[in-house]
Each structure stands twice: as C-alpha cells, then as structure tokens.
C-alpha cells in the first residue's frame, strides 16, 4: 500500500538519514521525496510503499512517531487515500 510520511519540526543534522534508515530497516520503499526548510522549520514529505513492510501499519506508525518525538519532530505515516479523498474528486 502507498502511504505518505510527513516529518515536521526544527531543522537538525541527520533527519532525512534517520527517517530513511528507519524505513529501510522495515523494508519500506521510498518512491518520492520532497523537502523544504523555511525559517529553520523542516518539512519533509515522502511517498512510500509499505507492501513489503515487516511490521503491521499501526506499529510502523508508532515507531515513526516515537522516533520523531525523541528528536522534537512530528513524524507520521498515513495511507495516501485520505489525501486523495480530501483533495481529488
């Protein structure tokens, strides 16, 4: 299934590396990344494929959230359907 990972928070060294490492460790494939830093505010959006992910989706979401919280970042993963539903007819 395709999902959107968002990472929002204060910029620091190693955010992308950390998130990518965590996803790779769970066999989550990254399909696309966009990332900006505005006024020290880091925003990264990734489109990922979780088809081969070793964890149930909820646990992957918990792991990402916990990783983010330990660094003062908001990290979440959501099924892409919610964005499609809300913004596309």
């Amino acid at each position, binding site marked *: 299934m395709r*999902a959107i990972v968002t990472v929002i928070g204060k910029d620091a060294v190693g955010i992308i590396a950390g998130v990518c490492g965590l996803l790779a460790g769970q066999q989550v494939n990254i399909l696309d990344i966009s990332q900006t830093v505005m006024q020290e505010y880091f925003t990264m959006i990734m489109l990922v494929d979780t088809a081969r992910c070793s964890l149930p989706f909820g646990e992957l979401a918990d792991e990402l959230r916990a990783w983010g919280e330990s660094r003062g970042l908001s990290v979440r993963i959501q099924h892409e359907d919610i964005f499609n*539903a809300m913004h596309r007819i």
Partner: protein
Amino acid sequence: MAMINSGEILQTIRMIDQQHLDIRTVTMGISLLDCADADVQRCAEKIYDKITRSARDLVRTAEEIESELGIPIVNKRISVTPIALVGAACRSDSYVPLARAMDRAAADCGVNFIGGFSALVHKGATAADLTLIRSIPEALAETELVCASVNVGSTKSGINMDAVAEMGRVIRQTAALTADRGGFGCAKLVVFCNAVEDNPFMAGAFHGVGEPERAINVGVSGPGVVYHALQDMQGQPLDAVAETVKKTAFHITRVGQLVAQEASRRLGVPFGIVDLSLAPTPAVGDSVARILERMGLSTCGGHGTTAALALLNDAVKKGGVMASSSVGGLSGAFIPVSEDEGMIAAARKGVLRLDKLEAMTCVCSVGLDMIAIPGDTPASTISAIIADEAAIGMVNAKTTAVRLIPAPGMQVGDTVEFGGLLGTAPVMPVHAESAEAFIARGGRIPAPMQSLKN
C-alpha cells in the same frame, strides 16, 4: 508527489493536528427484530448475543482505519431497533432487563454508547411503547451506555400531546434517579419530532425498521476547520463566506465518506449514510458558536444569530452533499449548549437564552440540546418546551429534538459538569409562567397543512 501536492498534504495534517478535524462517530446499526421473545429474560439474552455477534469487530476495525488514515475516530457506537418493537412480544411490565442487556453488550464490544432504547409514538402508543417509556428513568439510571429516545410527533401525523405530557414527567424522574450525577440520565434521553432512522449520533440514534439487517453510518465533525477557514475572510460579503464553508464542508465530508466505505468493506456491513454535521466539542477551537461570532456577531445568541446559523447550516449541506454517495441522518450544524465552548460562554453571559436557541433550531439541526434548566422546573413546563420544539419540527418538516437536564437542586447561575464530550452546562432560565392547563389537555395537535406555507 505525482498526485497530491505538498500544500494539500500539509493542509490535511493541519486540519487534524490543529483544527480538531476528526470523525465524530462510526455507528453500526443492528436490527434486533429477530430477538423478540415472550420471556423478557430470554429476549435480553438474544439481544446480548445478537449485538455482540454483529459488532464484535467494530471497534478493532475502526481503530485500524484510524491508524492507517491518521485521523481520530472519536466514538464507536451501536444503534439498534427501537426496543419497544423488540420487547412488544414480552410478557413483562418493564424493559429494564433489555436495557441491561444492551449495556452489557455495548461494554463487551468496547463502544462508548448504544442507542435505541426507543419508542415511536408520534400518532399513538402501543402497550409496549408505554412500557418502554415507563422503563426509561430506571433504565437510564441503572445503565451507563444506553441511550433512549422517544418520537412524539411528525409532519404527517401531528404531535401526540399525551406522549409530550408523559415525557415531561419521565425527564423529571430520570433526573431524580440520577441526581447524584447532576441528572446525568437526562443527557442520554432525547425527545424527537420527525426522528430519522439512520442517525449515527447519540443520544438519539436508533436503527429504524426501514433499515437493513446491519448498516454503517458515519458522523463527521469539523467546526474547528470551518472556523479556521473563515480566518482570512474578514470583511468579505456573506456569499463569499458561504462559498468558503461549502468548500471546507466538502473536504471534511470526503474523509467521512472514505472512513464509511472502508469500515463497510472491512466489516462486510452495508454502508448506510454519512451524516453531514458540524458537531462541536467543549474543546477551545471546536465551537459552532465561535464560527457565528467570526462571521461578525459579538456574541452568539444576539440578534443576527439565526441568520448566520442559517447560512452556515445550508452551506455545510451544499458542500457535503457532493462529497458523499449517500447522505442522511440529521445532517446540519448542531448546537448542543454544554458541548460547545462558545455556547457555554454565551449562556454564562446571559446572552444566549432558551428563546433564541428555539429560534435557531428553525434553521439548523437538531434542537434544544444539552441544556441544563433549574431542577425545580415543573414537568408541565418541560412538556411545553418539548411541544414548542416539536411544533417547529412538525411545521417545517424537519427533525427537532429536546435534550434537557433539569439539574436536581440547581438554580440559574449554577453549573453542571458532565465531563468528556458532554461538557459543562450552565443552568439556564426558563419562563416561570405555567403551561399546566395546556399540557393537561392531552390529545393530539393535528398534522399541519403542506400548502399555503406562510
């Protein structure tokens, strides 16, 4: 991102994170018509078994969807066939055992309310309807999760004033039996005119007889999102405001539709409806009253409130109706006083009063909702308030409802704390003048003309 752009993704996340966007309820309707039995205990067992069998995966499935989509589903609930219909075969003078069975089943399924301890008496009451209505005070006092409702009027049949008179007394008794909790039982009791069969919201949900064996009905929320969207609209004309509300309602409802479809697919239960409602919570920033104030009213309840609410209610429906394949339930902005931070503030100031709330219910969903009144309010006055509200519903061919809490021992100026989503209710004044003789007449108010509509 090929499909969705970053701005849209971040907008969705802001709605959920900062603007209280959530799915208010996923409610499974379950028919209990096959649970009828001459023995009330046997009927109660069948009810327990049917509910737990039908809804055992509801909470787990809703939590999975919540986790995958990253949006809170605040309540998971169950509605059942009006119990007066199920209990009619029982040789019993009380349906309290059936309420206990519902309560146990709801707790074991992990839902936080179950609706349908109900009777539909808009044209007249059967023996079973009367048994149910008499059972309401004890049923609500002895159970935690059971919600009751009684439909006392409809546009096609008029208002059953005997039932209206009885409900005034039932509300007083329910308050008395739950006096230690501020009359909390009354927060689980709704008196309707033109009740709908597919409403997912409590306390008035029941699974109507025109419904299938089971159905998934979803109620959306989002006053905070609408409030936020109007932030940039200062000084703009009201048609521009309406357009913005429509667009916002569309976004909100699309998520409701998605959740409903997913829940329906995963549970193997037909999708019923999405209820297009703006349902406030006591949280700051999730208030319908504050939306009206953002339109330019200094305080909700002042002159202009009815017009602002009419605009809001209509725009929510227009925006939502295209976002869902099946719209139903109550569908409109709710104005439950104790559950809306801005309404609470306006009531405390004395600006928002019962008479204005009554006028507001002419143009929105649903009625005089979650309003605390003095504990010594006579039953006939409560009945008269119900009659007024039912008349608005009857004449305007819309659903209206009354959920009043005559808070035992409390007076105007006191506050009842219900906690959680039910919030805080400042005790509001009612008119002291008696309607005793009017209510004592009983009988029926005939159904109104459907032409010559002035």
